[in-house]
């Protein structure tokens, strides 16, 4: 089956610093892929490069049968969604306005309303706070808005950067429940986590990133058997 996203020889980085060194990557339709590994080795950079926030220096990306256009806005309109690190909310807007911004590129009004209800169903806390400005929310609530806003885009590929960073365990559990529900037959997810144990139950493929390369790849079984390899990278 043709993958939803196929990346070949992708290099990218910041200004004069190359971070990604010729990566190859296939994301099957309806899969959850986890990009794991220590901080500072290019996990977030990879997501930004796929989302188009960073330009590709080399390489090619084919998404849903077409080459991806340059630039984040056009990619977002094709269905490539990034829930960035630090949430990047529109702080002076309310919770509901933030969520609706997620559907900015969509025109199917009725489906948007249904999506909004879904998000509120998943995060009842957000329904209570729908008219509050996001700057007054707690860290966990902001994360929910960030993920909810990503869901509102209803993209074919949703990428989430460190969904559990800095959150209480109970909220992390809630958020991973949400991720599980987000992955459906025709939807794919890439999730970035420093530590694989959190994503072990959810993800079907694992990519270990080290120094801008994939140092190790495998499925959930491989992950369990390769404990030693991973320990050297993750310091576990």
């Amino acid at each position, binding site marked *: 089956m043709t993958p939803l996203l196929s990346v070949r020889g992708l290099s990218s980085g910041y200004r004069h610093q190359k971070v990604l060194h010729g990566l190859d990557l296939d994301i099957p339709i309806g899969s959850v892929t986890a990009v794991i590994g220590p901080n500072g080795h290019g996990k977030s950079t990879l997501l930004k490069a796929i989302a188009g*926030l960073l330009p590709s220096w080399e390489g090619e990306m084919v998404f849903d049968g077409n080459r991806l256009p340059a630039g*984040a*806005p056009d990619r977002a309109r094709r269905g490539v969604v990034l829930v*960035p690190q630090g949430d990047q909310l*529109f702080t002076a807007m309310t919770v509901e306005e933030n969520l609706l911004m997620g559907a*900015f590129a969509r025109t199917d009004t009725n489906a948007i309303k249904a999506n909004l209800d879904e998000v509120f169903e998943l995060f009842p806390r957000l329904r209570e706070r729908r008219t509050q400005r996001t700057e007054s929310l707690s860290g966990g609530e902001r994360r929910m808005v960030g993920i909810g806003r990503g869901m509102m*885009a209803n993209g074919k590929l949703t990428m989430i950067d460190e969904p559990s960073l800095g959150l209480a365990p109970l909220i992390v559990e809630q958020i991973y429940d949400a991720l599980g529900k987000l992955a459906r037959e025709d939807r794919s997810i890439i999730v970035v986590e420093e530590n694989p144990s959190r994503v072990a139950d959810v993800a079907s493929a694992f990519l270990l990133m080290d120094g801008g390369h994939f140092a190790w790849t495998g499925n959930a079984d491989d992950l369990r058997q390769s404990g030693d390899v991973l320990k050297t990278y993750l310091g576990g």
Partner: protein
Amino acid sequence: MDAIVQIIVSGVTLGAMYALASVGLALTFGTMGMFNMAHGLFMTIGAYVTYSAAAVLNLPLGIAILAGLTAGGAVGALMHLVIVRFMLDREDFRTTIMVATAGVAILLQDLILKYYGAYPFRQPAQIEGTFRIGNVAVPYQSLAILVTAAVLIGATAWLLKKTRFGLAIRATAMNQDAAKLMGVKTERTYLQVIIIAGVLAAAAGILISSMASLSPGMGTNPLIRAFVICVVAGLGSVAGAGMTALALGVMEAAIGYYFGARFGFPILLGLVILVLIFRPAGLFGKAEVIRS
């Protein structure tokens, strides 16, 4: 009593012009972190084009004003397409864009000087006559200024708050990268914002020249006042700029009435210094613009 009516009438007229001059400046700063030093020249160009269309080409006044507004927007668009868009990704954008737009301002001012000369002209876009409030004669021109400014600022506010187009502008102002991720074409948003600012500046220029006269340097003073207003209000706060402009207009009129017009501007500048010391984020200061 008459003194107070007089102060309010001239203060509100001044304030309305200042507000119109400030809103565009606040909008460009709030959206893209660009302090546009050429904003004053957008005013000058709007005024001169209206003058040329009405007094030289003898076009009807409405068309002349429309031409002036269009010219303001067009110069803004041109500046964006030729200069600003190539500088947006620079790390030191906020500083370099001030130098670049200051250069544009000098260039445009000299072009106007070369073409029209330094002699002040009378702006034909005027309404003659006065009416009375008590013993105070109020020029119809003041009323026209007030109405024009209110309509244009109201329309801008409506655009920002109630339309999808305004939503894109507000999102871009709050977080550029996040806006892009939502599918907002931020580069187009910037162009649109500069055009709106150019049109508002041109309108301010036409109104200001109708109260004073046309001269190549006419935009300098309003630009400084608009800057003062934006700093006092908090850079980037559009609604705050409008309210501050009205307050400062009335204050300046009161100072002018009781102490003499020459004290108005120095006191205004003193106020900025105080605000910068005690409320650096401005009276309506809001969260910083994020451009990464």
